[in-house]
């Protein structure tokens, strides 16, 4: 094998510009794949971290009737906080959230919303709950997200009517005062939601000491079975993000598949041309004692070496470029809010050894296959005709 490697490398380097053009195109494919994959990994990781910090903590207990995708369940999705979880809340290892349906009436319009009650003193989530302690006037202090504020045309200091149904199903309404508009990357705590103090919401609805969701502090290992409540781990809670990222990833894959195809086309073309131009050489090396499979091996290796050289070239310019991107991040336009999950203003790509190795293996495997395909012609080649410069 060393012999073939040496011969193949010698032939490849001797081909000069043709080789280097292929290598450079292939190296673009290398860097683009790693960059785009790293970007989506970074995006996924950032979104997951933001969600963990602001919403899901280290896992959640859901009331057994709670289904976030079915608002109709919210009428039933609340119950007294069970003893073990109450103990965790006391120890500041968990925080309770009560969720009910409501309607907001800003500027004569109405918006169906989720009213969420959270303890203003909680330290579990990175959430500006401290603003909910404000007690000026009769109005209920409320926090909304910037997207919600924009959708409703509300700003800090605005007063707006909020209507809800209490535990018995009776409608009630009060004015709330927007005490803070939070700029969060986590849309799932922003859009269509109004946050108030947990105690206030419990009083308003007659759901004393009740909750819909108990969020555990990060690192809390508590995951006991509790009757009427179900534990949801991070894998479960982050699966939506994973799904969205996977979906976006498939879209991005098209770009690098196209780039990879271009590189492969160039290599395929080079191989076909090489076999055509070098048919006399093929005949000569057969006359010197190489078998057809050996010649095929040599030419396939020549093609496959493009992948190795491309990896080297990609490392030369790709390593500093990708490191720079990982340090400085990539600025995200406002439009990315429509991605459906938390995105910061900058995305910091994350590259792992697995990603780089996997990409290298993928590119080299595809390059080898593409290099092999044209060489099959050699299997049909008669040495006497090759020596005369013919291809059969």
């Amino acid at each position, binding site marked *: 094998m060393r012999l073939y490697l040496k011969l193949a490398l010698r032939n490849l380097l001797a081909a000069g510009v043709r080789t280097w053009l292929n290598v450079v195109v292939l190296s673009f494919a290398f860097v683009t794949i790693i960059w785009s994959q790293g970007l989506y990994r970074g995006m996924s990781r950032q979104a997951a971290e933001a969600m963990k910090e602001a919403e899901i903590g280290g896992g959640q207990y859901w009331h057994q009737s709670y289904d976030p995708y079915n608002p109709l369940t919210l009428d039933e999705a609340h119950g007294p906080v069970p003893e073990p979880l109450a103990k965790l809340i006391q120890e500041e290892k968990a925080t309770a959230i009560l969720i009910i349906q409501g309607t907001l009436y800003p500027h004569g319009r109405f918006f169906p919303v989720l009213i969420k009650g959270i303890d203003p003193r909680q330290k579990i989530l990175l959430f500006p709950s401290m603003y909910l302690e404000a007690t000026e006037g009769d109005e209920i202090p409320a926090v909304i997200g910037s997207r919600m504020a924009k959708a409703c045309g509300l700003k800090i200091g605005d007063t707006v009517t909020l209507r809800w149904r209490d535990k018995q199903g009776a409608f009630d309404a009060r004015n709330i005062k927007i005490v803070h508009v939070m700029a969060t990357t986590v849309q799932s705590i922003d859009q269509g939601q109004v946050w108030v103090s947990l105690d206030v919401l419990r009083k308003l609805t007659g759901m004393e000491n009740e909750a819909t969701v108990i969020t555990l502090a990060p690192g809390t290992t508590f995951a006991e079975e509790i009757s009427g409540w179900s534990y949801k781990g991070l894998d479960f809670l982050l699966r939506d993000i994973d799904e969205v990222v996977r979906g976006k990833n498939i879209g991005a894959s098209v770009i690098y598949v196209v780039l990879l195809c271009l590189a492969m086309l160039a290599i395929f073309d080079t191989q076909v041309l090489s076999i055509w131009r070098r048919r*006399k050489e093929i005949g000569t090396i057969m*006359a*010197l*004692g190489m*078998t057809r499979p050996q010649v095929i091996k040599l030419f396939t290796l020549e093609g496959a070496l493009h992948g190795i050289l491309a990896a080297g070239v990609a490392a030369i310019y790709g390593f500093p470029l990708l490191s720079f991107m990982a340090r400085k991040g990539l600025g995200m336009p406002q439009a990315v809010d429509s991605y459906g999950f938390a995105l910061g203003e900058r995305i910091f790509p994350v590259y792992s050894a697995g990603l780089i190795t996997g990409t290298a293996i993928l590119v080299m495997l595809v390059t080898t296959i593409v290099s092999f395909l044209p060489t099959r012609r050699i299997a049909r080649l008669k040495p006497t005709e090759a020596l005369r410069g013919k291809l059969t």
Partner: protein
Amino acid sequence: MENEILIETRDLVKIYPMGRQELVALNKVNLIFKRGEFAGLVGPSGSGKTTLLNIIGSLDTPTSGSAVVLGQKVEELSHREAARLRNQHIGFIFQTFNLLPFYTAFENVEFPLILLKIPADERRRRAMEALDWVGLADRANSRPAQLSGGECQRVAIARAVVKRPAIILADEPTANLDAENSHHILQIMEELNRELKTTFIFATHDEKVIGYLRRKITLVDGRVAKDETLDLERRVEAASEERRPGVLK
């Protein structure tokens, strides 16, 4: 040892299909070549010289009949066995030199030894020795494009002899060379034949080559028309015969 038969063809026939017709390139050729011969296949274009060389060199197989080379029937060899036979025992010299363009003279000569898996040190020694035989040791690092036609053919000779094969098959080795270079490489080959007892078989219609042959086999339309042993006087005569138009027609 010198009478050892290296090559024997029996009723050798080679037919090429040409559309609906067939071209008989060799027609019942019976020949024997012994160790150390310096023989030539002579005849006009299309007489079957190259076809016979290709079959002897196990690059091609006969349509019928048999070609036994170093005890192996060419028609029965697999691709791998044929390649091994060529690799170990047969050297080729081509009209157009057929040097590997990306390799230096040294690397071209070294190539057959690489295929024989000879260690690097030994390869280097033998390749340089072969280049020395043909007077090109000082051009070892030149690529074919940097060499003249005569030098390229000398490199090709060095490549053919470097593995000390039993047989060297030379197809029109002087066709692309001027008279001076032709004589030079023929002298080298004659010397190697004498020193190494390598059997040389030429396919040629060049009178300069014929002037060096010790055996001349004339092929006409795929048949052996004449098979003669030449002494020095006869060699000169044969060479001049070749110059006369129509002699072989």
